[in-house]
């Protein structure tokens, strides 16, 4: 029974997904699915929180599932994070899909299954379960991207995402195949243990392929090209889900791989290991994404590039894993949390600004929002400030801890580049605020009207609460992150 308790977050979401699937198929009424999906996910988060409080260490039987499923605090943290992100996306979908006339119940089922996949991914300690989770997550995301069937843009984005995603998945699995060939292990811990003694070049080639495969999933430059197209084509709640949950799941995978499979001293060497590669990815990702984001005319696409840039900041923290896995890992976890609530909020605010099939897309659509809809503008501003990393918001501490980890690891230049980038980033976030508060819509221009939706409002309130709470009282959250990252190494 203890195993069931340890597994309960996964079980809750899995059972909820199955139930919701049946309900969607058999119930004559279609309403309430969003509420159901969000409830399942928030209950999942709460259950994960409950197991966390109870103490996963008190459930020794849970270890019997290792290495296929590592039921540790790291996994629980991601369970909470992913359920939160997925739940917010489900709430947003509840407003968005109805408003834009594409309300079909499959969407919520897809969100649930994709979240489940991400949770499995975050808990997996073996290449087999890892791939299982990764594909469950990705297939759901592909389908959600193409959800607006009539739109060529959605189809294009989904196809690109699918093709390149398959490409990356192939690279990843080929990498694991080579690692298996080199070490005789499919479990990460086994690969890590053997990596120290193995001398075979296969190991290196396999590791390169795995790193590249994961870099695709976190959409690090130059493996990011699919992101803007897919994010723009997808319905905004699906974009939210991809930006938030899929990315978080991918980071869980990255952390597990780097810490467990490639955590050896010769792998974490600054001269010849993965840190310089990850650092390069981080710098490229931040810089390229920020520079291009500033030139976007569509707010949605700008947010897509912004989410790429944020992966770059998180990679700064990942680089610092080489010195202090616990503190740096905690900084990444905290960053992901702050990023999740800020990004979900920003996309949610964007959703709130459109109605009746007319989405708010361009900056122009948002002009004068501060006057037309002060509450929406205020919420949007809060999330943008958080994304820009301005105190007292969650985003500030996200960046703070990540850069601090880099500095503690002796990577001053990386921290400085990250800081310079966040200054560049502030420019395009504030541009949105300039439009909201300091521009009036051009006369006669079609301007999207804000919608009224309890779901979206609820999602925004939850996000805003987290953004402010993490910004004002981050101590508790960082303690949680440190505990989660402590066990991540073993």
């Amino acid at each position, binding site marked *: 029974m203890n195993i069931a308790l340890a597994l309960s977050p996964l079980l809750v979401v899995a059972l909820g997904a199955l139930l919701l699937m049946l309900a969607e198929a058999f119930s004559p009424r279609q309403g309430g699915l969003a509420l159901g999906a969000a409830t399942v996910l928030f209950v999942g988060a709460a259950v994960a929180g409950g197991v966390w409080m109870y103490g996963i260490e008190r459930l020794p039987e849970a270890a019997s599932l290792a290495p296929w499923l590592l039921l540790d605090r790291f996994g629980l943290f991601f369970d909470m994070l992913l359920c939160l992100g997925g739940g917010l996306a489900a709430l947003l979908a509840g407003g968005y899909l109805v408003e834009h006339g594409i309300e079909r119940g499959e969407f919520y089922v897809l969100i649930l299954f994709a979240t489940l996949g991400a949770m499995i991914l975050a808990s997996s300690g073996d290449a087999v379960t890892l791939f299982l989770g990764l594909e469950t997550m990705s297939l759901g995301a592909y389908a959600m991207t193409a959800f607006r069937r009539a739109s060529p843009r959605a189809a294009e984005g989904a196809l690109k995402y699918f*093709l390149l995603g398959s490409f990356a998945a192939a690279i990843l699995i080929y990498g694991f195949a080579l690692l298996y060939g080199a070490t005789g292990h499919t479990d990460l811990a086994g690969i890590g243990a053997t990596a120290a003694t193995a001398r075979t070049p296969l190991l290196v080639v396999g590791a390169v392929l795995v790193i*590249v495969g994961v870099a695709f999933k976190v959409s690090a430059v130059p493996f990011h090209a699919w992101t803007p197209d897919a994010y723009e084509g997808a319905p905004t709640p699906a974009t939210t889900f991809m930006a938030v949950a899929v990315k978080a799941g991918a980071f869980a995978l990255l952390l597990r791989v780097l810490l467990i499979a490639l955590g050896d001293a*010769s792998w974490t060497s600054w001269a010849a290991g993965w840190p310089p590669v990850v650092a390069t990815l981080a710098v490229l990702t931040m810089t390229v994404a920020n520079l291009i984001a500033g030139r976007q005319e569509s707010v949605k696409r700008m947010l897509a590039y912004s989410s790429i840039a944020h992966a770059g900041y998180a990679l700064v923290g990942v680089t610092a894993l080489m010195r202090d896995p616990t503190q740096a890992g905690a900084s990444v976890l905290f960053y992901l949390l702050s990023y999740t609530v800020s990004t979900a909020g920003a996309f949610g605010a964007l959703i709130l600004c459109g109605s009746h099939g007319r989405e708010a897309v361009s900056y122009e659509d948002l002009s004068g929002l501060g006057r037309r809809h002060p509450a929406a503008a205020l919420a949007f501003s809060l999330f943008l400030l958080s994304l820009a990393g301005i105190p007292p918001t969650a985003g500030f501490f996200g960046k703070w801890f990540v850069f601090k980890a880099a500095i503690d690891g002796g990577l001053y230049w990386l921290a400085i580049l990250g800081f310079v980038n966040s200054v560049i980033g502030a420019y395009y976030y504030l541009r949105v605020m300039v439009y909201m508060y300091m521009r009036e819509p051009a006369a006669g221009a079609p301007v999207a009207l804000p919608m009224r939706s309890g779901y979206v409002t609820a999602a925004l309130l939850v996000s805003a609460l987290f953004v402010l709470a993490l910004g004002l009282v981050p101590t508790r959250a960082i303690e949680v992150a440190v505990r989660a990252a402590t066990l991540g190494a073993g």
Partner: protein
Amino acid sequence: MLSLFPSNDYLLIAVILGMPLLGAFVNGVWGKQLGKDAVRVMALTAVGLSFAASVAAFVALSQLADQQKGEHVKLVWNAWEWMNTNGGAGGVTVPIDVKFSIDALSGVMMLIVTGVGFLIHLYATSYMADDEGFARFFAYLNLFIFSMLVLLLGDNLPILFVGWEGVGLCSYLLIGFWYEHAPNAAAGKKAFIANRVGDFGLICGMFLLVHYTGALDWNGIANGASSLLHTGEQARVHVWPLGGGQYTGVLSFLQPKSPVTISAATAVGLALLLGCTGKSAQIPLYVWLPDAMAGPTPVSALIHAATMVTAGIYLICRLSFVFVLSPFVMVLIACVGAATALFAATIALVQNDIKKVLAYSTVSQLGFMFLGVGVGAFTAGFFHVFTHAFFKACLFLGAGSVIHAMHARIHDGDPSQDLRNMGGLRRWMPLTHWTFAGATAAIIGLPLTSGFFSKDEILYRAFVNRTVNPAAAALQGRVYAPPAWIGTALYATAVAAAVLTAFYMCRLYFLTFWGEFRGWTVGRPSLLSKHEVAAHDDHGHGEHHEDLSTPGHPPHESPWQMTVPLIILATFSVFAGWLNPGFGLSRQPMEHWLEPVFKEATEGAVVYAGGHDAAWAEHMTLPLALGGIGAFLVGTLLAWWMYVSQSGAPAKRAAEAQPALHRLLLDKWRIDELYDATVIAAVDSLAETAAAFDRAIVDGILARLTALVVAASGTVLRAFQSGVVHVYAAMMVVGLAATGWFFAVPHANATVVDSGNNDYLVTAAPGVGYAYRWDADSDGKPEKSDFGADSTLKLHLEPGRSQTVHLEVKNSFGLIRSKSIHVARPEEPTSSL
């Protein structure tokens, strides 16, 4: 008061801070629904109650100070624990709490902010009465008061920084308040960027402080400040090579013989100074402030003259005990201040926009304050902050009153601020005129007014004071000593700036209030308000023609909400100087009040020039005061002669005689253009390059190259040829190839660690499957012929000697890379900064 609130948990601070925040929230969210009257009441109540609570707190503080004579007393409120970081020598945990405190310094500032803030709020209720964004304006203004109070009362650097950013944000929002005008939005952006540059310095300073002192709260920094001055390597910041590394390989020519280092105190001081120059508009970051006058005039008065811009000086005063540890930074502060004072004053000479003149005058006056604190006269510098708050707020509000009146006649923004359209206003606006005259008298240093006392003290201190390193004895001669002529130079510059100040302020005053009104023929009839048209209707029906060549309505005096604040501020401008009259008088309340705050900083760090003693300095008081009085006389009389007795003719002649110089001054030395051409162009071109890269490399070359590859390799990739997915895939492949290349090639790299006893330990960087071979003397014959796992090599080197070690690394692919490592024992660093 103390019985109600204990001094270590002084909850009243929550009221002081909370009221403006509440006002901002209510006016911001419900302002539209509430209506103007309710907004007015809310805003005034919020600031008024905050002021009342501030007064109560101040009284309590002075009682406490009386009880504990000479102690640095504080009223503290620890709201909640915020976060932790680590730093200091042992990597101790540094708590950062949301904690506020009131001491002598922040208490005075708090009174200024809430008191002057209240007056300006009152003024604005009338000034902004017809503005559409009335509620928004007061929400921002209340939010500003809140942020400013956070900045002042924060008990540690991060909380100060929160306020620092908050006032920056409010300033940005209020500058762009009339965002319909493009230049206003641009000005807001400029302010934002300049401030962010400054913030970068502040953040660096914060990191350095936590790293060296292991604390971020004022008491903690004060206790740990001595660790900024250790003679050992740990308190030296390596400037070159950056971070204390070693340039090797192709960069080895950059490696200096002995590393260039500065003391941690200097590094901290420089970083914080950058932050202060940004906020307080000093060279080189002053450019934003003159443009910031695009905001409504009450904003200029409150934020860009009286309070926010003095935050830099406040920070220097607050951390005075850190700054004095580096005499170099102190001299730099003084020089920056003096240069800014003179430079901004020259620009103010020829500006025609009434607010522009006052803006440059503010920059110049802030320069005086910097000069004061830079020479270690913290009280004098801060006292100028105090007096400046009154007279500059009064001047700005007076200017606002004038603009208000002019606008009612001209109905056009820019001409109603133009000095060339004013004149003779004292006839119609007596109250504005007299208050303006009082404030002008203060700023030009009319003897016995507040500006005279505060400025004179700064001039005097600039001449007689020297800052020296308080730990000079412990530093074994490695101390920076400023040149002997610096005091004279600073004094001369400051006196020159004072002459210019007197001149341009009198020019402003005479052009505005004296002579004949020159604005009859300016204005656009189409912009006449409906009210005015209705008033003229009795002259005849039908078409309305106003003949602008004949006198119409003269400008009128402003309502009481605007004149009452003017009167109060003017009174303070004239008389507040007696709080610290200097000249060796026995009653110096301000000096006495602030003494505990600056005691730590000035003891041992400030001496008299040329090794003189206090008696000499006393003797110099009167002779040096002649400079200030002379400056006042010269500037004022010159302005009188030029603009009153000769009605501006000499000024015209001078402009015509030196057209190039006049143009250059009018264009503000073209510094904006210089920045546009350098810094901004560089950032722009970087963004352009990235976009061009996207177009040229990704879309151009990569797309074509892939097409070529596809055509060559046939069928496999053809399936991907739809759209541009193949380009994306190609990027991934390139990335994969680059990553693969990195791991396929061995990386020969080594770190050199000084292991004591003149031994060096050369450690080759580890890598997967690496094997090493060493050749310690580089004679081409490795010690062992086979590659082995031994990744370290020990070397013995006497000082001044060097040796080149040859390292070969073989990876699991059998590839070999080698590297020569030059190990040298450098000479001891000799810098004294």
